[in-house]
């Protein structure tokens, strides 16, 4: 039997979507060999979270009531103790920024192998086949692991669990060693405010690293002006200081859903796609016909942006 311990994610009082997705991923793994799915709910309003997470497919929910917000030491200690108690075959965690702040520590502490950012999982109870991407999504790989393991899952790859479950909900009496806690969260800050809200735009002209140099940005601004559209970008453009933070689309920027999203010289890394895949119509201008952005584009031009963009601007002048 393959029991699974899945760890849920919350922030500032709310469960994050991946918490419901991890139920689906965990249930699938457990089902392949008729095992049980255990959920861990650590810190925050755990009882409220547990009621919300009691969805179809969950066998047991273990709450650890310790502190309000995420702390990786509390998580690492609680998960390790739950592992000792429940002896699951797999510990499944979200591949979120916080997931990556504790899952590798849990794996090392428990002396288990870890495979991160998985997009597919299969097991016969002994061998785990984990699918993940490499090279920014250009290829997919199958990775084999024998025996117990820690796995993190990419968000939005599994559907959210629905329905009402009949899981047992129990407080787990974790012994948290306060002396071992060496980090303290002192606050949160929202960044990327300012005069422009790209999530309000009907048309976004979005620029990526294909633009090569800061001096070329006006090319994109001219197009946006001709189209009466708004300029947004992928992360490297903001990292380089060529556009302000409030223009960044993606996981750590804004989620946008315009009528038309024109991705210019953007490869379509998962963290970028997370912010724009809900756009009505996606157009990609990219020299690389195999760029991952092509998988979600509705229309594409496989050509040099330095030729296509000026031609398009001219159309509308």
């Amino acid at each position, binding site marked *: 039997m393959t029991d699974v311990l899945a760890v849920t994610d919350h*922030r500032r009082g709310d469960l994050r979507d991946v918490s419901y997705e991890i139920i689906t991923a965990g249930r699938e793994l457990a089902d392949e060999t008729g095992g049980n799915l255990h959920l861990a709910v650590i810190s925050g309003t755990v009882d409220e979270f547990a009621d919300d997470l009691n969805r179809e497919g969950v066998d047991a929910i273990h709450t650890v009531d310790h502190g309000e917000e995420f702390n990786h030491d509390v998580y*690492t200690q609680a998960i390790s103790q739950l592992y000792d108690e429940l002896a699951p075959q797999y510990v499944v965690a979200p591949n979120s920024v916080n997931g990556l702040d504790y899952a590798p520590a849990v794996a090392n502490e428990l002396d288990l192998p870890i495979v991160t950012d998985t997009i597919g999982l299969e097991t016969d109870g002994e061998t785990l086949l984990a699918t993940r991407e490499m090279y920014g999504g250009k290829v997919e790989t199958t990775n084999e692991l024998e025996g117990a393991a820690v796995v993190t899952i990419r968000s939005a790859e599994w559907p959210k669990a629905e329905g009402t479950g009949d899981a047992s909900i129990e407080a787990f009496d974790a012994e948290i060693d306060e002396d071992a806690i060496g*980090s303290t969260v002192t606050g949160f800050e929202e960044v990327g405010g300012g005069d422009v809200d790209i999530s309000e735009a009907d048309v976004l002209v979005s620029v990526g690293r294909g633009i090569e140099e800061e001096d070329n940005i006006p090319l994109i601004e001219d197009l946006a002006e001709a189209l009466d*559209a708004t300029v947004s970008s992928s992360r490297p453009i903001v990292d380089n200081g060529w556009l302000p933070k409030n223009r960044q689309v993606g996981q*750590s920027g804004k989620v946008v859903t315009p009528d038309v999203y024109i991705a210019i010289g953007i490869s379509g890394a998962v963290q970028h796609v997370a912010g724009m895949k809900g756009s009505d119509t996606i157009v990609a201008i990219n020299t690389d016909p195999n760029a991952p952005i092509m998988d979600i584009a509705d229309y594409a031009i496989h050509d040099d942006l330095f030729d296509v963009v000026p031609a398009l601007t001219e159309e509308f002048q």
Partner: protein
Amino acid sequence: MKILVTVKEVATVEDEFEIEGTEIASQYLGADLNEWDDYAVEEAVQLQENGIADEVVTVTIGPEDCEQTIRQALAKGADRAIRVWDDALEGVDLLDVNAKTEILSAVVEAEEPDLVLTGVQAGDDSFGATGVSLAEEIGAQWGAVVNHLEHDLEDGVASVRRELEGGVEELTEIDLPAVLTIQTGINEPRYASLRGIRQAQRKELDVQALADIGVDEGTIESELELTEMYEPESESDVTVWEGSADETAAELGELLREKGVAQ
């Protein structure tokens, strides 16, 4: 204060490529300093310029081929470099986080840095796990996805910002010694100056075998095996416009007019 920075040479892939077995055929591969490590090196060098760090040491696991990448980090201002390699690592899949943790922790033990900086992830395999795993192994504190570090580090505490999802940053105080995984955008990595490049040639690049750092080669085995590599099946039904730039631009123009979003 001494800072150790992990530096990885990552594989880059050309637009068009072929897969041979479980690898990309070598003629389509290039090599580069990992983007995230570039920011980690820069942060360490700035800490040194600000008088907070005395020494910046880089550590790389990799064969001789990657020395050019290591020299790049030295040219940007790191003081010296350690490269760990061994015949015994030839057949080991270094995707395995435990194997890397084992090797890096032995180097940490020998060097005793106050702060270790790693990249958030390697741009090629994107595991994003080595830094935190290493911290746990050496009994240090850690913070993942750090996009700001206060340059005072007084009282043995690092004040950092961790970049969470959705434009939210977490302000965290972390006890030293610590491992921080550095996110792009934390600083502006410099280009190496000609003088830096010249100096880098003379800087110490120490090559260590597993036995030199006290690692038993028997303990380095990969528990994770990459058994398949393939191009993802495209589910897209993308319409590709062909022709000259003027023709494709006209097609796109027509679409925008049709949608009523531009005139």
